[in-house]
């Protein structure tokens, strides 16, 4: 058994006992071929918290998010573990029970807002559909609420914009439409899968600010997924670094980004472009996430790890708490690393 880390937020100082909105415990997600797309993921999201899920492409971030939202593609399903949302195990819910949660208590924002919206329906209509599904508001009430939420997500000129079609909006506006859809019923949890990846850096900043704003005003917890540690730094309270379907490191943003304990995190950080690194070639982690999704018996990062020792290729490191709330799955973590204690 790998170490439990439900206590991951206990470092949050003053508010000691937070309610855990989402608890993922030893989640394994497999495709019908038996491939382990997510191998053993455990982490929590507390009320009002923003948790970042980071890692390179193919690490299983989206699959984890889709499992929580119950939107896994056909042929892929969780085969082990639990996904507890507000004390209910989502894996055991019926289709109807799921539907009642999606769009009301759980909002979902996807990466590619152009394809994520129906090209044939005006965006206002698509936002209003969520109300149609979950409330018994009439048309006028729905329209009023749609315009309200459209201005809340800073969409200009909601009256006019609501009648436009997705292709007539800018990338940033489309992303805001998706966010409006996700938050219109005041969900407890917002899952945002790379919501800023397709956007230029200015718009990216605006969307991050909007998410932060929604989080602080509405007390919405956010599971924010990104392959980009710099966006996570700006937004998240805590970070889960995922590698090949297994968490490599979990901790507060300050802990993980300032004192990375896992070699993988360290290398990810080195790959972030920053002003003081201008002109230098960016450090790239050589190789890529292995496509082999068989069972793991040793550290999945070892083949790419510049510091790997022989133990790394023999055993699977468990998550260990290296400082309060800071967990890492790396044999090298204690050895040569300054953990700031």
């Amino acid at each position: 058994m790998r170490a439990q880390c439900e206590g991951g937020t206990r470092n949050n100082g003053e508010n000691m006992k937070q309610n855990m909105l989402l608890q993922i415990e030893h989640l394994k997600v497999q495709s019908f071929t038996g491939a382990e797309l997510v191998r053993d993921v455990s982490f929590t999201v507390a009320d009002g918290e923003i948790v970042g899920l980071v890692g390179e492409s193919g690490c299983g971030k989206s699959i984890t998010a889709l499992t929580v939202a119950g939107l896994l593609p056909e042929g892929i399903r969780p085969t082990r573990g639990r996904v507890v949302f507000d004390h209910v195990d989502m894996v055991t819910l019926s289709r109807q029970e799921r539907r009642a949660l999606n769009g009301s208590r759980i909002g979902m924002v996807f990466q590619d807002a152009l394809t994520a919206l129906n090209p044939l329906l005006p965006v206002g209509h698509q936002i209003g559909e969520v109300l149609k599904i979950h409330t018994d508001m009439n048309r006028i009430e729905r329209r009023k609420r749609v315009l309200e939420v459209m201005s809340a997500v800073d969409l200009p000129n909601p009256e006019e914009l609501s009648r436009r079609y997705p292709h007539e909006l800018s990338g940033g506006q489309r992303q805001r439409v998706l966010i409006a859809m996700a938050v219109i019923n005041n969900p407890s949890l917002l899952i945002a899968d790379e919501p800023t990846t397709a956007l230029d850096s200015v718009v990216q900043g605006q969307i991050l600010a909007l998410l932060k704003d929604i989080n602080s005003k509405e007390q919405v917890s956010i599971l924010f997924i990104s392959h980009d540690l710099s966006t996570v730094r700006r937004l998240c309270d805590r970070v889960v670094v995922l590698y090949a379907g297994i968490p490599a490191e979990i901790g507060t943003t300050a802990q993980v980004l300032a004192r990375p304990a896992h070699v993988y995190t360290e290398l990810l950080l080195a790959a972030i472009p920053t002003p003081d690194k201008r002109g230098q070639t960016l450090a790239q982690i050589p190789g890529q996430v292995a496509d082999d999704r068989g069972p793991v018996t040793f550290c999945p990062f070892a083949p790419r790890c510049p510091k790997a020792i022989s133990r790394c290729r023999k055993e699977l490191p468990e998550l260990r708490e290296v400082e309060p709330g800071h967990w890492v799955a790396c044999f090298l973590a204690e050895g040569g690393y300054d953990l700031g204690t």
Partner: protein
Amino acid sequence: MAAYLLRKLRDTIFTLLLVSVIVFIIFALIPGNPARIIAGVNATPEKVAFIEAELGLDQPLPIRFINYLGGLLTGNPGQSLRFNVPVTDLIVDAAPITLGLAFYAFFMVILLAIPLGLIASRRPGGVVDTVIHVVTETTLAIPPFFMAIVLMLLFRVTQADVGGSLSSGEILTFGDHLKMLTLPALAIALSRLAMVVEFLRDALVEESHTDYVRTAKGKGASRMRIRMVHVLRNCLVPTITALGLILAEIIGGSIIIEQVFLLPGLGRLLFTAVEARDFPLVQTIIMLIAVLVVLVNFVVDLLNQFIDPRLRVVQSHSRRHRKYQPTVAAAKKKGNS
């Protein structure tokens, strides 16, 4: 919109002109002199020449073409050489039967294809899907005239029951027409059904794996809502386009089927006219069908624009809009990271 309509009109006129030129040339090339046919086997060369002059057949080809085109445009395509009555009279009698049959078959295709496509796509590769596939493929493989004969035997209907009553000159109500045309229309519809069902079914299956469907599920939409509100709508454009394409085939099909059921439609008229080298009559029938096909394509275009805003040509930023070529595949999931 006005610019769009003008462009469309220009294209339409050009298409129709081209069709008339082609038919004219083909007719000029095939052997057989209508004047000789009219004059009879034993006629003297003088008599044949006289008839030729009377019909304007002694004129050079370009003049004959211009005369003919002028006649068409003024709504007077001239006398039928074979029947010696105005071409329009003949067509007014025959066209309702053929076109009625064609549109009847067309609506049958729509009414059958949409539910079948919806049902087949529910579980792709499942029993129902396979049965529908096999059955529609089979009906595709059977030639419509043979299907017509099979249907007549099956429903114990004779040729006289269908076509005979018409030829007798009775006055028939719309209901009578509908009853009379049901079997012929079914024969045509069945032969064209497979393509539309397959098109719709494939589109439905493909569209149900798109990102916007995932979004709809994320909203908590029911399966029914997802299919009817989101998926089906996105399948309409390719389906309507396919329907537009088969209408020409259906009109062609009804010309053949008329023979089986002894219906005095355009088909019968066309055969007689070609045999008699009755150029005005043939040309007019072909042009009528061409106009219809062009018209249908225009309606298809308008319908698709109504459904898909990306196809709408807005003058102010038409350049940007025309870039979009939404096909079933275009909305397909782009590589997900």
